[in-house]
């Protein structure tokens, strides 16, 4: 059991868990924006035909787990990670590691997460938290999205570790087993590798559904929604986009502010001033994502009803697509090494 576990609050749970676990091992340089950028977390994808909660399947970040594995690879962190078929065995392994004084990351489902307000409890299975101890029947929990630490009963933790559905956690847990030397050169390399990976995903990926072309594609679709779906359904669709973009965990503006903050820190590490002006472009993009959300809210609140109101969203998102395309092109041109 760990007496002095330092809880770290972050916007996003995956950034939070890796930041927290590394800082716990004494790597105090780690911040959430650095984790997000090294992990190449910025993304956009609009998957056609598939629906989430009856709305479009849009994501502003990469697949759950990608940030984590990318960072571990870049920083030479060797993880002990495993999944379980058997609940009892999963609990025993966790208990054993905690008793050895190890802080353990766990993937959990949100629906039965008792301390969450009921309005936020959907069957979303890729939330992450840290278990750092156990007192009687209660696990001590550091949930990165929260200001303070909390607890979960044995029964409640088992339930969320074995939640069912898409991305079912299957008791998934992980912790750093071995960490190599992390000096300034390793950090610089990790930053550059993260930037390059992100550039590839956003402007070089083929097809029209991902990256900046994906944003443009959604933009063009939205202007057809009023006639095609009717105001009610269009409103629900737009609400779904706003939730993916702004809801808890994004840091605001569909993770764009987080990425701008990363580039600001990267400029410092790499002594590269040009990154600052690119950071400003992502701030601009984030601000525009927020404006598009305000416009969308006008529609789902029933205040805006005309075709020109939908067209306005299309215009904003087209501008965002152009700004982000330009920004990543500039990152690409820097040829960071």
């Amino acid at each position, binding site marked *: 059991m760990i007496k002095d576990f330092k809880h770290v609050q972050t916007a996003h749970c995956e950034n939070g868990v890796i930041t927290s676990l590394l800082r716990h091992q004494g790597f105090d340089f780690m911040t959430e924006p650095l984790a997000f950028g090294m992990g190449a977390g910025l993304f956009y994808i609009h998957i056609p035909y598939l629906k989430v909660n009856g709305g479009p399947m849009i994501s502003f970040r990469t697949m759950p787990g990608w940030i984590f594995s990318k960072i571990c690879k870049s920083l030479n962190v060797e993880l002990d990670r495993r999944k379980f078929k058997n609940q009892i065995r999963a609990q025993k392994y966790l208990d054993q590691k905690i008793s050895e004084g190890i802080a353990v990351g766990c993937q959990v489902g949100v629906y039965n997460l008792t301390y969450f307000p009921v309005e936020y409890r959907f069957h979303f299975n890729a939330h992450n938290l840290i278990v750092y101890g156990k007192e009687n029947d209660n696990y001590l929990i550091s949930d990165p999205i929260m200001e303070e630490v909390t607890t979960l009963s044995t029964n409640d933790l088992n339930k969320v570790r074995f939640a069912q559905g898409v991305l079912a956690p299957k008791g998934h847990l992980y912790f750093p087993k071995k960490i190599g030397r992390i000096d300034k050169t390793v950090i610089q390399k990790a930053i550059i590798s993260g930037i390059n990976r992100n550039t590839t995903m956003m402007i070089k990926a083929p097809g029209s559904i991902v990256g900046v072309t994906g944003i443009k594609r959604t933009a063009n679709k939205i202007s057809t929604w009023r006639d095609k779906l009717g105001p009610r359904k269009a409103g629900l669709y737009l609400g779904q986009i706003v939730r993916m973009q702004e809801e808890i965990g994004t840091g605001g503006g569909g993770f764009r502010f987080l990425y*701008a903050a990363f580039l600001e820190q990267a400029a410092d590490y790499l002594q590269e001033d040009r990154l600052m002006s690119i950071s400003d472009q992502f701030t601009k993009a984030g601000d525009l994502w927020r404006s598009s959300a305000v416009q969308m809210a006008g529609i789902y609140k029933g205040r805006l009803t005309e075709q020109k109101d939908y067209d306005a969203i299309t215009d904003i998102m087209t501008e965002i697509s152009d700004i982000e395309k330009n920004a990543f092109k500039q990152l690409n041109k820097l040829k960071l090494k």
Partner: protein
Amino acid sequence: MKKKDLPQDKSALDVLTKEICYVKNSEGKYEPDLSSGWSVKIAALDNAWDDINEQVAAAKKAIRQGEKSPIYYYFVKTLMDFQVLSGYTGFWKYSIKKHMTPSGFKKLSDKKLAKYAQAFDITIDQLVNFKVE
């Protein structure tokens, strides 16, 4: 986004925690700051719940009219999809669809009913003697 523009509206999450957003401070540098919520996304979440509540009401109506079984009601009420319910019960989607009809529901054994009850976190009695208000 500038620090002074960070919205502080009251969201449902506020009873648990404030959330971190990244904002520019007065010196133009990024820093994390806490927000209690933003009306724009509060409205989006409220809208989603209005939609869910309408689906729940529609499920009740379908039971009253003898079109669906209580399994369907709890399926909607607990926000599940087939993959989730399949995972908890071990039944295939095809079987679950049958159990969602009144005739398929009547044929369910106590053992199967118990699995559903556990999945929905209710008693077998709440499932079998389901009353539509």
